[in-house]
């Protein structure tokens, strides 16, 4: 089991400074990621869900050190990424790649697709032109595009095709881990399925490990082995997908699941409609962040922040309802 852990995030924090006033002094912090810990096993897919602004993307970007973590460790293959120098980290990026949410904004409109995909190779030591071309074409085909299409520019592609380009860019270095940040959210449902299938196929073919970030619970359920639920910068529940969806423990997860419209016009079900909005991460409530909206809130929830509690070896939840005393 130890051997199988590829990525372990320990107590990761990312605070953004809020600057204000004249001298641009720091007047506060947005606690975008606040003490998040989880592990990802080789070959598995860990899904992370949560509402907009809860810190999913920030988690992903901090792992890759596209943002510098405020605190915490990111153990990747037994190396703490947070401790590497900028240049070491740059080279390490060969092994960890990212697929971005917006297939429109994440491709440079001024570069031909083949250049976008092949650009990473020289940065990691492959300088031979023919070799680069060969590998670009190979990767294009893997992702369902043709070599001829490589000569085109992003604006000539549909959203789904662009996302394939984005995946090809991530894949060309043959990484061990891919962090996919909402890779299908911007796509139409009929295209979504194509991309999800592609990701699954590639995972099998190359033994990839995924961290799959999405706000779409159905997609996460479909693709993930394990799922973590985030709320306001914190992980509130994590466990195997089956268990989490069949039997959500955290009141937030329960509400989330019940909020999703079902494609069955006749189904009658009980809905938990939450009151109010997600609080600002710059000014989170003192106790449990969910307490103000929680239908099951207790007195203690307002003051004490619940810690992650292991319900079983593979299932953890951070809620006072499940405190083990």
């Amino acid at each position, binding site marked *: 089991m130890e051997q199988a852990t590829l990525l372990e995030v320990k107590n990761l924090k990312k605070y953004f400074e809020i600057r*204000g*006033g*004249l*001298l641009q002094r720091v*007047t506060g912090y947005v606690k975008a990621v606040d003490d998040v810990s989880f592990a990802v096993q080789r070959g598995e897919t860990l899904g992370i869900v949560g509402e907009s602004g809860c810190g999913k993307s920030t988690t992903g970007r901090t792992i890759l050190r596209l943002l510098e973590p405020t605190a915490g460790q990111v153990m990747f293959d037994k190396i703490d990424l947070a401790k590497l120098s900028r240049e070491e980290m740059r080279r390490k990026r060969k092994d960890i790649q990212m697929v971005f949410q917006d297939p429109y904004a994440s491709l440079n409109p001024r570069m031909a697709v083949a250049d976008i995909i092949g650009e990473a190779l020289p940065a990691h030591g492959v300088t031979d032109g023919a070799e680069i071309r060969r590998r670009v074409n190979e990767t294009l085909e893997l992702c369902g595009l043709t070599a001829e299409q490589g000569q085109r520019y992003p604006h000539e592609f549909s959203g789904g095709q662009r996302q394939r380009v984005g995946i090809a860019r991530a894949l060309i270095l043959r990484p061990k881990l891919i962090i996919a940040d909402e890779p299908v959210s911007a796509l139409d449902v009929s295209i979504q399925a194509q991309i999800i299938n592609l990701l699954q196929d590639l995972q099998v073919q190359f033994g990839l490990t995924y961290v799959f970030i999405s706000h779409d619970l159905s997609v996460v359920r479909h693709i993930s082995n394990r799922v973590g639920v985030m709320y306001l910068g914190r992980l509130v529940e994590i466990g195997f997908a089956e268990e989490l969806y069949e039997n959500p423990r955290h009141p937030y997860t329960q509400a989330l699941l019940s909020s999703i419209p079902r494609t069955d016009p006749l189904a009658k079900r009980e809905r938990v409609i939450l009151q109010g909005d997600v609080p600002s991460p710059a000014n989170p409530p003192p106790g449990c962040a969910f307490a103000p909206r929680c239908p099951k809130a207790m007195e203690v929830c307002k003051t004490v922040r619940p810690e992650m509690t292991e319900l079983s070896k593979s299932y953890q939840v951070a809620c006072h309802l499940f405190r083990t005393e």
Partner: protein
Amino acid sequence: MLIYIVRRLAAMIPILLIVAVVIFLFLHMIPGDPARIVAGPEASAQDVENTRIVLGLDRPIYEQFWEFLSGALQGDLGYSFRTREPVMDMISDRIMPTLELSFVSMVWAIGAGMLFGVFAATKRGKWQDQLTMFGATTGISMPSFWLGLMLIELFAVQLGWLPTGGNQSAEHYILPAITLGSQVAAIIARFTRSSLLETLGEDYVRTARAKGAREMRVVWLHALRNALLPVVTMTGMQFGFLLGGSVVVESVFSWPGMGNMLITSVSMRDYPVIQAEMLLFAIQFMLINLLVDVLYAVINPQIRLDS
């Protein structure tokens, strides 16, 4: 808001100090010995030496700087080399004509610029748009001294409608203000147009239409107010430009303002006056920036100054 303004004003002090140092060093780098010039073409070596002492230029440079700085902090800018008048008095004589002229120019430039800009934007792509923008670009491309001289020739000399120079009455403002403001008006027109075209494509403009608002209302109340934000910033920048442009225009229209005085002072190496004027320019510039930021916040509720 008030606290914000006070704090901004306070923050100007260190910058002004730097500006003062820069100006001072800069001036002393410019070749040309003021004592020689002030003493006059027929002065003997002794006369020049005397003049140097009178002007205080015989002392070490750091002492001169210290005197300038400590004086400036107490509101004493020294005496003009040229006229021996207190610089403060000279400036207080000159600043109003310049400010008045800048203000009048700015008012008409903003008025005309916005009007034309809005007009062009609403006629986007049609010949009216093209013509207006062509005119505006011509305005930007015209050397102001040329325009000024042409206006004098036409309206003062040929037609005799307006005076050629000076600032005695309202009539005197017309030609210099047109000359000084035309470039700014042209820039504002272009800027307003492009800014308005952008806001006209915004979702809230569609919302306004969906409410049933008439087109006039949509343009002037919904789109323009938002389009004004970048226009305000740019207009503020133009004000600085205007102060610079007044150097040329004031000389063409013998306007007794700061620009005119600056030219004389530079040609005479009248350090105290140049220093004071440059400092004043810098202060004006910063005050205008502040004003722009405040205005911006007034127009745009999303900006909160006191945070």
